[in-house]
């Protein structure tokens, strides 16, 4: 059986395999709560304004509640990269199942069907649907073919400087992409790990590096530098000479 994960593989027309990281009920409920609070605040302000206009104000208030309840999520999803303020605060967004940004029709469908998700009371049906569905889709998502995912985090490798100020070394044997990634990850995270743990990890790959302890970590830095194509850091004088 496939290892358990919450990602959903998607193939783009260019033949690139992407992994969408699907967002579950807890974050989505919190995002909804934030949006709800924003709307409530808005209504309170409107209520104060509308009392100045007496009966006309009443009508305007009801109209604005209608518009906001139905179009608040749609407008944000279409014009703000699939994220309402609540979703944005929790770093999630809405996409088509294919990984493309949501368009008007999909967003309208998924938000109009909130009424169904809301049944029988306060999103009971929607919650059950999300708990059963593998991609945590509520009924609106199923109908519109949309999916709620985490916004991408841009990995910030400190590329300007070689790790541990070491020179680059070529890889002695052929490693799979995933294994190369692990070596880069190690170099990136070794500083934050407890020192004993870093040594322990480096010792596992002694067959590859041929070294143990601190020297093992050092040579892993060198291999990682080789993988990302980072040369030995230039000394200041060399730097000036080059520029």
């Amino acid at each position, binding site marked *: 059986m496939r290892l358990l994960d919450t990602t959903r593989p998607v193939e783009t027309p260019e033949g690139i395999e992407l992994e969408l990281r699907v967002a*579950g*009920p*807890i974050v989505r*409920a919190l995002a909804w709560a934030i949006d709800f609070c924003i709307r409530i605040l808005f209504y309170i302000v409107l209520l104060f304004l509308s009392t100045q206009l007496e009966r006309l104000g009443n009508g305007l208030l009801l109209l604005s509640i209608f518009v906001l309840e139905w179009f608040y999520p749609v407008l944000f999803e279409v014009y703000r990269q699939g994220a309402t303020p609540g979703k944005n605060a929790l*770093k999630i967004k809405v996409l088509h199942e294919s990984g493309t940004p949501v368009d008007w029709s999909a967003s309208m469908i998924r938000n109009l069907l909130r009424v169904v998700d809301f049944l*029988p009371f306060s999103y009971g049906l929607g919650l059950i649907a999300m*708990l059963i569905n593998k991609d945590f889709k509520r009924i609106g998502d199923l109908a519109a073919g949309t999916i709620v995912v985490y916004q991408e985090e841009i990995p910030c490798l400190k590329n300007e400087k070689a790790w541990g100020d070491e020179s680059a070394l070529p890889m002695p044997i052929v490693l799979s992409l995933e294994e190369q990634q692990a070596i880069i990850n190690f170099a990136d995270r070794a500083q934050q790990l407890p020192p004993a743990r870093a040594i322990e990890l480096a010792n596992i790959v002694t067959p590859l590096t041929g070294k143990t302890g601190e020297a093992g970590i050092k040579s892993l830095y060198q291999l990682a530098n080789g993988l990302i194509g980072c040369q030995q850091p230039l000394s200041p004088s060399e730097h000036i000479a080059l520029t």
Partner: protein
Amino acid sequence: MELDKIEAVVRPRNPWESIDLGFSMVQRWWKPLYKVWFAIALPLFLSLHLFFYFFYESLWMATLMIWWLKPFLDRILLHFFSQALFGEHPSIWQTLKASLFKTRLLLALSLGRFDFARSFNLPVLQLEGGKRATERIKLLQKNNTQAVWLTIVCMHFEGILLISVIGLLYFMMPLSYSADFYALEGLWLEIMNMIFYFLVLSIVEPLYVAGGFALYLNRRTHLEAWDIYLAFRRIAAHSK
């Protein structure tokens, strides 16, 4: 613990994402999970209610007891998840034994009952145990607001589902009866509410425990670089 046998993808996740992984665990193992759950929770539920009904003539006290005994039920669920994640399915007797003893149950039923990061601390107490548990919790829990939010949201989920079930029943009732629904009193209404509460508990509690467990796993993955450990083991295996 043999990390190589883990049946989930090990990667450092954002905390919310790790809660979702917990929810996926429930989705994948719901069959064996509910077998264990109902084998232990259902007799407990029935016996408590019968006891309180015959000796105190009150049912809500029994429901309160079930609520109060949640930490015990959590331990059963956590034991199940911690075994299932590594491909093992323990018997009901083993599960019961593992969740009753040496898991600081008494503390959890008194002071710990109101701990909002309960689901996250439970794996430390139950699976790691030992005298240094409090220290470990402090270390692991740093900046972990998600565990508290998990508790708050799950409380709301319980409420939503409970109201939904009752609302659904009300919607389904023919109009001529619905007027009587409000007037409905006494034992039947109480029994119905109890059963609904137990059903909702059976849905939300596994999610809550799995979510907390996954948060814990994720924290350790970050701190101890489990993903790198696993990849390095593979590298070592074929570079010999």
